[in-house]
């Protein structure tokens, strides 16, 4: 075994883990502050899950609906999140999103236009006004390409196809990170004064998901192992419209922009069933409500042939559909033999996003570990119990920038940390362990069973019994994972990569299940069949999960009181 001193090693002021929208925006800001910045990503640059974002970026620009302003955006976000949001984050987000959009445009992004040449905005669920700046249905690609090129030309170092498996510490503070190159399997150590975690979500723990292979909760698990706190992990968003057929594409996202552009939801009898669940907002209700409604229709026998609902945009002119929803048109035509300009799509809920994540300070993204910051989906707070569509892309740029800024400022104030060889040696042993076993299961089998467990027991509707059952199953899966075996060499070996990702998935799945069991109410995306009501008392507290010794512990944290001015905005009925 190689020793730490023989590793390839790099040193930065600020190390960013993750190169989606939040990571890249953080890197750009840290560079602008003069920091030496490194960006590590599991995939090639530009392939992060942000490219999958379709519908748009929510910002109260008031280009289309002149009455829009940050106050309305703040109110929509808080109401959509069932008031569990960190109100200060919701305020900063609503106030700063328009500037972040203008900045993207000034860096070369080309959004669709209004008739008078401004950035066009479209309607989305839970947003009072037309608010989503977009590029057809490929807004995420536009955003990531813009940020990627900006960052590359400003001069950050990018470490592509490199997976971080452990955060290194110097006493209480973060000191660096340890990982491996996917291509060679060789190890690499990064020393950094500040680290920003921007690793995205956790969807790969569920069977039906819109998420890519990367979304395995790495950043949350890394932070948890480094003693940082996780917040509100029970809140997992099931997007109402994923593809349900054919089997290979089950879960693949069907953008909310279909409904934003006028798409209608119907059951097998042709009823617009949203009338029963949210007659005021209908198809443009919040995601938690629409997902539960589709699920209920299917469960009660009114679903489509492949177990979903019908989503129809074919009443709009074919040319309009192809221009505004080009990738949906191609996706259905090529993968499901459906022409969406002529007939309906079949859609059903798919695990899409986690509102919970690393607990951070609103203004800086600082976690409970000195020097460790988080932004984007990996961080928690902005979205409360349910995220509005379009608020994720704006989250990435607003809080990516803030975390990058704070990380650079932190790096200016502190001295270089010291790395501890014992920690890197420990990290090496952990990742290599599955190679050393002569027998044991494949990580693919354990991952398959984890996905079944989370899908069946920690899904849209939850009960005490199911959640307890899930915890028992997770214990068994952890025991199996401790004995799993990996075949082949260290060179680009996906089985080995999965063995590491699986550990992260098990950690975040357990956190999610613990928090879901503890919250004895229904709120936003967390629906308990045994506690169907939303209770004011529960609205006054968040769930925090932290590692104590080897045990996952959970405590309740009271929510800080909201200032009078924000309370007034919330109370206004618009």
């Amino acid at each position, binding site marked *: 075994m190689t020793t730490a001193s023989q590793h390839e090693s790099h040193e930065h002021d600020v190390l960013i883990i993750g190169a989606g929208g939040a990571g890249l925006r953080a890197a750009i800001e840290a560079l602008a502050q003069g920091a030496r910045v490194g960006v590590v990503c599991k995939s090639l640059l530009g392939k992060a899950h942000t490219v999958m974002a379709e519908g748009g970026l929510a910002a109260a620009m008031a280009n289309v609906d002149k009455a829009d302003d940050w106050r309305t955006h703040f109110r929509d976000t808080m109401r959509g999140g069932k008031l569990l949001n960190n109100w200060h984050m919701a305020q900063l987000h609503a106030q700063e999103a328009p500037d972040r959009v203008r900045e993207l445009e000034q860096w070369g992004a080309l959004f669709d236009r209004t008739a008078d040449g401004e950035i066009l905005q479209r309607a989305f669920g839970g947003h009072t006004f037309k608010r989503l700046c977009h590029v057809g249905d490929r807004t995420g690609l536009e955003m990531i390409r813009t940020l990627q090129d900006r960052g590359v030309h400003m001069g950050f170092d990018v470490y592509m196809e490199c997976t971080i498996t452990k955060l290194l510490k110097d006493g209480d503070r973060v000191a660096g990170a340890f990982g491996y190159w996917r291509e060679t399997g060789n190890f690499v150590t990064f020393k950094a004064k500040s680290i920003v975690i921007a690793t995205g979500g956790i969807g790969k723990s569920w069977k039906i998901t819109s998420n890519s292979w990367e979304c395995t909760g790495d950043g949350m698990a890394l932070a948890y192992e480094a003693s940082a706190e996780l917040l509100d992990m029970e809140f997992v968003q099931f997007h109402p419209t994923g593809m349900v057929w054919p089997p290979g594409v089950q879960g693949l996202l069907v953008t909310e922009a279909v409904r934003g552009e006028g798409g209608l939801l119907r059951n097998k009898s042709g009823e617009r069933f949203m009338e029963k669940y949210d007659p005021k907002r209908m198809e443009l209700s919040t995601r938690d409500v629409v997902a539960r409604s589709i699920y209920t229709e299917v469960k009660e026998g009114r679903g489509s042939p492949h177990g979903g609902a019908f989503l129809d945009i074919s009443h709009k002119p074919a040319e309009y559909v192809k221009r505004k929803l080009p990738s949906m048109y191609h996706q259905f035509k090529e993968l499901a033999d459906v022409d969406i300009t002529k007939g309906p799509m079949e859609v059903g809920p798919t695990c899409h996003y986690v509102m919970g994540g690393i607990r951070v300070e609103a203004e800086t993204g600082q976690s409970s570990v000195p020097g460790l910051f988080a932004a984007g989906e990996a961080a928690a707070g902005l979205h409360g119990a349910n995220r509005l569509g379009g608020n994720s892309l704006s989250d990435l740029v607003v809080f990516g920038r803030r975390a990058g800024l704070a990380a650079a400022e932190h790096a200016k104030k502190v001295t270089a940390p010291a790395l501890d060889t014992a920690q890197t040696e420990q990290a090496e042993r952990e990742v290599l362990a599955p190679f050393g076993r002569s027998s044991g299961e494949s990580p693919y*089998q354990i991952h398959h069973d984890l996905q079944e467990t989370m899908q069946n027991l920690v899904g849209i509707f939850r009960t005490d019994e199911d959640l307890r059952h899930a915890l028992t199953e997770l214990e068994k899966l952890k025991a199996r994972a401790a004995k799993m075996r990996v075949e082949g060499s260290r060179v680009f070996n996906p089985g080995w990569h999965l063995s590491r990702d699986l550990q992260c998935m098990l950690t975040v799945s357990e956190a999610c299940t613990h928090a879901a069991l503890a919250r004895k109410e229904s709120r936003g995306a967390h629906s308990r069949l045994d506690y169907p009501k939303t209770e004011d008392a529960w609205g006054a507290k968040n769930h925090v999960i932290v590692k104590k010794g080897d045990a996952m512990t959970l405590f309740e944290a009271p929510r800080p009181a909201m200032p009078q001015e924000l309370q007034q905005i919330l109370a206004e009925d618009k």
Partner: protein
Amino acid sequence: MAEVTVRVFRGDREGGKPVDYKVPITEGMVVLDAVHSIQANQAPDLAVRWNCKAAKCGSCSAEVNGRPRLMCKTRMDSLPLDQPVTVYPMKAFPLIKDLATDVSWNYKVNQKIPPFQPRPGVEWKMDQRDIDRVQEFRKCIECFLCQNVCHVLRDHDKKDQFGGPRFFVRTAGLEMHPLDGVNRTRMLKEQLGIGFCNITKCCTEVCPEEIHITDNAIIPLKERVVDEFYDPITMLVHKIRGAK
């Protein structure tokens, strides 16, 4: 359940060979599903890149039955299943392992292209009609299939002198941005070697985003290079002024 033989290249820089796997076929299955099935059940160390599985990220490029394509977009039922379905890595890039190739050269080319720079004092308003053509170029998902089939790269390996179709598309997107103020013509001629392209349109044929690479990006850029460097009157003016 019906089974099909999938013949996947297995190997690394030292060499390799195709290996046959029997894969059960399900309705609507794509080639990437078959590769994932092999990974999960038969060869956990089979190297392949993928992310979105929806033709939005451009990670799963390979040569299926000899044709460069995205595996996530290639339906098994579009291929003759009475014979093995062959899956090989992209040929124009150095092999890492199995279906994963080293595409890092592309990222180096990208760095040569001067980024977007607005003209001083521009008003941030644009007409949709003016950006329609630029949005076509910005659809590119960087699957590098166009680079893979371009004979200047694939057969002649001129990576040190030629940028390839992907980066002409990128440059076109910048040059035709209504508010951009940078001139990239010299860079196109001298650093990206646009003159090597003899417009055989192989790139356009394989583009999964259906970008008209040759007609809409490369030919207009070639015209700009000709106008600036080979126009007789301009050349004369430059000569009189003593410019290079």
